């Protein structure tokens, strides 16, 4: 009888240990899944704060172009924002709005954790955008996804800031070969209106 009780006690102990392991495993998995959501939340908050910090100016409707992977086109979406007074700040505002994401559930052209390290506008109308390298690592690779992402930025900037004629994308202050293996970043990009969904 005592021996039987011992066996039962051992079985219960093993079962408790196994359950503990499963629970721990589930917890770590959940933590892993939750991590990006947390990061996204922080990024969104930072973006909104940055937008709020922009100087008070006229309210303006701006058009943002978001990638639609199904159609292979950019779909416009309008936003009402408090427009900054100078073009460099406006570039920041447009990019922050793009990073903030679409209200129609379209894909973000840039990952939520993207950090725009700096933006310059040269006298010939070329906007230089310097992104952090962490943004590049999170990019969805693909010919279409990268092409749409780049033109989402270029067309959105050119549509709202007339002085932006071309866009040059840099990463960590350096010129890079491609966005993530496909789209050429070795040249300036001119806006391409044919990428925008017609009739919208």
């Amino acid at each position, binding site marked *: 009888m005592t021996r039987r009780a011992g066996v039962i006690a051992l079985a219960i102990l093993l079962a408790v240990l196994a359950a503990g392991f499963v629970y721990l495993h589930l917890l770590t998995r959940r933590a892993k899944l939750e991590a990006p959501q947390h990061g996204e939340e922080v990024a969104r908050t930072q973006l909104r704060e940055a937008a709020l910090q922009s100087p008070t100016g006229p309210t303006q409707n701006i058009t943002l172009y978001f990638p*639609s*992977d199904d159609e292979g086109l950019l779909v416009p979406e309008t936003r009402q924002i408090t427009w900054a007074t100078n073009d460099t700040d406006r570039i920041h505002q447009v990019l922050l709005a793009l990073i903030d994401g679409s209200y129609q559930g379209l894909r973000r052209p840039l990952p939520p954790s993207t950090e725009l390290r700096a933006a310059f506008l040269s006298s010939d109308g070329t906007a230089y955008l310097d992104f952090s390298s962490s943004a590049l690592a999170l990019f969805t690779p*693909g*010919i*279409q996804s990268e092409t749409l992402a780049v033109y989402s930025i270029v067309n959105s900037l050119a549509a709202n800031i007339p002085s932006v004629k*071309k866009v040059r994308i840099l990463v960590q202050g350096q010129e890079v070969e491609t966005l993530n293996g496909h*789209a*050429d970043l070795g040249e*300036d990009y001119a806006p391409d209106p*044919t990428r925008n969904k017609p009739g919208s």
Partner: protein
Amino acid sequence: MAKLLLRRTRTLLILIPIIILVIIFWQARPLRSDNFVFYLPNASHVVPVQAIGHANYVPLLQVLNIVGKVQGLTAARDSLKVWVEDNQIEVRQDDKKVRIMKKNIKLSDPVRVDNGQWMVPLNFIEAVLPKIIREPVVYRLGSRRAFIGDVRPSSFSFRLDPIPNGSRLTLQFTNKVNIRTASRNGKWVIYLGEKPVQPLEQKFNFQDAYLANIQFDDQDGMPKLILTPSSDGLNFYPKLDDSGRTLMADMVKPAAAVAQQLPPVQAPPTPGAAVPPSIAPGAAAPAAPAGPALPVVVLDAGHGAEDSGARGENGVLEKDIVAQLVARVRNALLATNKYRIVLTRVGDVNPSLDQRAATANGARPEVFITFHAGNLGIRAPRIVVYTYQPPSSPTPSADDRSPGIFIPWATAQLSQLARSQQFAQALQEKFASLSGVTVSPPAVAPMRVLRSVNAPAVAVELGSLTTDVDSSPLTNPNFQEEISNAIVQALDDFKGRQT
């Protein structure tokens, strides 16, 4: 009688050693041996490759001595510890695992001990060496050579053109070479100097009436080309131009032989000599030489090595899908006997985008196709064919299309855009006839790899390969076969439209 017997025995005693010596020294130096060559910046080293079971092995200590400084070793009965530079490597007999500084790396085959020598499979070179030495290691899977450190191997492209009563072989090298030629066992050998050479193709496929085979060999540490003529008695005139980069070798029938051949009596090929497929046995002698070398198709499987590209829901990687697809397309094209195929990458390596374009331009291809897989939305499977779009001017001007004498590397594709678009159209039409596949109209994209290709060039993207869409159709062999066959048909159509 006894005297006669004695004399015969004496003759035999003299003859037997001579015969033995002839047998020993006849073909004493084979043209190919089974070795692995390590090229270092100022030297090359050869280690023997030994087959054990189904795999090929190289001696571990010899390899480590070549690539790094072995500082010490401890050998036990069934394990060996070696200190190389600042790393400790531990291997165990009959175990696939190699332990480097407390981390395990699994080899393709177990480590063996043969005649007291520790042997590791060839896969060790690719899997372990880059982790224990500081210098970069370049090793193309399947080849028998590795480049350690700052070694820039030269490469070459080749073409065959018909000339009166012969063929002209033109070899274009990327770097200057010193050549020396020799004739051995009825074959011509072109030694390409001491510097390392990495051929673009593992095997050269062509059809020619005068040249049966070209083989690259550097198994003894001396890069060379071995040419097998299709019959005996041909003359061989190699000549290197002043730049040291272009070798022209004429293979011609001697004038007397040509005169004898009229009326048509062709000297039969020597027994054992390879007969090219273009000459059927008993056929009339080729009054005109066979047609030019086969047109080249360059296939580029995107990404490779540490660059996996896009990732599917079950951990499927873009680099693997496109490599599979390229292998199928290659087989489908070779089966037609109409094309020669050049691959920009063989195995899991990642040449730079410029290297891929250089491989393509060196081969002077009929077309260049790069394969990718990525996010194409929820309608899977879907195929999109792209041609190049310059980022700065989405619609290239007429100036861009007239390149002049020199073709700028950065914009080489601009002069080919019209033909690239024709080929994309032909591909799209054939893909559209496949059932169960969504095919979009040909699109344009600022694809970096297409930018410098000086030939009709397209990118084929399969989709969707993302973590939230079922990517299983893309890995389906039937689907890949259908795509391969469609590409073969599209290429025929495209060539038909060109002529």
